[in-house]
């Protein structure tokens, strides 16, 4: 009598059972509670104090966005777990079969290697969701305090963290599949993670192409989603990189194929993905899902800016590490790119800090030109209002009347009650009890 369950489902069940018997996963689960807890408790306490808890003066505005005040710091714990704990779980699941010899047996089932790696990825994705349960508990606690939740921005944060976890799983799977030993795979995975930090660091100093590349590192991707910004190019590039990692892992599982052939297949796949990634960088659609529209200009400004069809060229004489440049880029130019179809920003600087260029007469100048033959206009001020005024002046349009769509925030002067007990006591206890229960049940 043959089993009614297909080989893929058997494989998924096997991977799930292997995951449940993996100490790495239980450690991830046990640690994720206190990790999320310490971030959540600290964030809620600060939020409460800014809201007037403890007799302080109540703050106003953007500070009372739960996205910035609570979700970004709380979910940053998930980012840490994804960077430093999840790779070990993924490596255990992928490399375990090679180490034990199970791979030699399983590869004799005529199931495509893509299905095999798919089963592992599916289980690892589910593992990450379970490990993210403390973040879900944090949301429930926040609601129980009477805190506001704006689902679109929370969805953006969750999407960012799932993509980040997907990138980690894909990277660790590829490393585990192409290296001979799990410890080598761990070193490779962590080296790549540290490498992306180095790219971020170089980008902050050098700017230019490094800055562009740094926009797609996992840290930068998570940061964008944590600000409620969903960019099509970032989503597609993340998915392409996840697919590349899993495909390389699948190629590495092809035991009967010569190593040279596998290397060539991986290189071709890498080149194709690089082309896809490059093409994706030209995609501009994006969605600001934050409740306070922190990634967008006011709606009235956007309506006027969208009507300007001529290309806008900007030349900013500011060095990469100059805070004015960071302000301009994050608070003005990134928003401009989202509403104006053709914005070309070029930075001019002889050094990375700009410290010794201050004496130059042109340093600090920002030149704006609308259209190919438009008259350039210079403005040294880097605030949103001033930049928009310059652009409106160049376009010859009236600045819009100020609308009333100002985000008032959601102050909440409530301390993080019960959170310590939940994250530091109940969660670890539940994890330990779960581990013992599963261990006995599988015996």
């Amino acid at each position: 009598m043959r089993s009614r369950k297909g080989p893929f489902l058997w494989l998924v069940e096997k991977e799930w059972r292997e995951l449940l018997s993996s100490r790495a996963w239980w450690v991830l689960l046990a640690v994720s509670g206190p990790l999320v807890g310490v971030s959540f408790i600290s964030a809620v306490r600060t939020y409460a104090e800014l809201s007037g808890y403890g007799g302080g003066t109540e703050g106003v505005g953007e500070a009372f966005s739960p996205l910035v005040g609570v979700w970004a710091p709380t979910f940053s714990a998930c980012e840490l777990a994804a960077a430093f704990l999840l790779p070990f779980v993924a490596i255990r699941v992928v490399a375990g079969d090679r180490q034990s010899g199970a791979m030699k047996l399983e590869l004799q089932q005529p199931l495509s290697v893509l299905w095999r790696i798919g089963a592992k990825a599916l289980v690892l994705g589910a593992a990450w969701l379970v490990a993210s349960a403390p973040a879900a508990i944090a949301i429930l606690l926040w609601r129980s305090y009477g805190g506001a939740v704006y689902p679109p921005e929370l969805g953006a944060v969750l999407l960012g963290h799932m993509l980040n976890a997907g990138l980690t799983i894909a990277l660790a799977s590829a490393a585990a599949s192409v290296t001979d030993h799990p410890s080598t795979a761990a070193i490779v995975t962590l080296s790549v993670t540290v490498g992306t930090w180095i790219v971020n660091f170089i980008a902050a100093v050098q700017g230019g192409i490094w800055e562009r590349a740094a926009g797609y590192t996992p840290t930068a991707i998570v940061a964008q989603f944590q600000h409620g910004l969903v960019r099509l190019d970032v989503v597609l590039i993340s998915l392409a990189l996840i697919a590349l990692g899993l495909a390389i892992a699948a190629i590495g599982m092809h035991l009967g194929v010569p190593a040279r052939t596998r290397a060539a297949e991986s290189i071709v796949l890498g080149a194709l993905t690089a082309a896809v990634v490059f093409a994706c960088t030209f995609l501009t659609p994006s969605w600001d899902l934050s409740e306070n529209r922190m990634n967008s200009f006011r709606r009235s400004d956007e309506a006027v800016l969208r009507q300007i069809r001529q290309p806008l060229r900007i030349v900013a004489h500011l060095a990469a590490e100059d805070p004015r440049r960071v302000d301009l880029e994050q608070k003005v130019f990134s928003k401009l790119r989202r509403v104006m179809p053709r914005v070309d920003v070029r930075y001019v600087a002889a050094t990375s800090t700009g410290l010794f260029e201050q004496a130059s007469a042109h340093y600090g100048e920002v030149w704006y030109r609308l259209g190919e033959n438009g008259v350039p206009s210079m403005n040294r001020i880097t605030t949103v209002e001033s930049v928009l005024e310059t652009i409106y002046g160049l376009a010859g349009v009236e600045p819009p009347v100020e609308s009333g769509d100002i985000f008032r925030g959601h102050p909440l002067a409530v301390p993080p009650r019960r959170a310590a007990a939940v994250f530091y006591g109940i969660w670890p206890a539940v994890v330990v009890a779960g581990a013992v229960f599963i261990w006995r049940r599988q015996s």
Partner: protein
Amino acid sequence: MPEPMVVVDRLTKAYGRLTALAEVSLSIRAGEVLGLIGPNGAGKTTLFECLAGVLPYDAGEILLDGAPLTGEARTSRIFYMPDGIAPWPSQTLKWTLDYAAGFFGGSAAAIPGIVRRLDLGPLLGSRIGTLSKGQRKRALLAVGMLTPHPLLLCDEPFDGLDLRQTREVGAALREHAAAGRTLFLSIHQIPDAARVCDRFVLLSAGRVCAEGTLDELIHRARTLHPEHSAHPEHQLEDVFLALT
């Protein structure tokens, strides 16, 4: 004489400068128990892994039922049970057998019989990783016997077994072959091979020295070495020494 199920023709495999298999040729007939005999390092495992598609080979050809062996045919017709592995170490033997039958498309109904024949009943609740070498060997043999592939390659099926277990497992393998399965067993203990196998392939230093039934091998040894006179109890050992 039945047509060969598998024909291996001048198979060559090298690890860098070391030639592990040098133009190895042999045939496997349907329904037989073929023994691959050779000392450690002779290339037995390499030959099995090349046949099973776990290792790529450099030259030569493998024919299955007269046609070149494709990946699809390999995964549906040949199953290889390596030596020295401990797959799914945290899973119980019971679940492992269910998994083997389900995943590889074998029959779950065959599990009780195989468990009884290999005396695995008391071990069903034990995790694979906690089994002794001999227990694990029997467990993996059970996995191999549960698979539906017509040809089973088994690397060192008696390694780690005591004398009694070796005889019992040998008898179980003979019964399994009698039920229609073709077995190709790699064995370095020649007396074990003599007890279980119908025919033998003698492999030494990556080369096939001889292939045939015991009588054929004795005849060949006597032809090559007229002074050869094997003791009845050590016939195959003496033949092996004479021909390699």
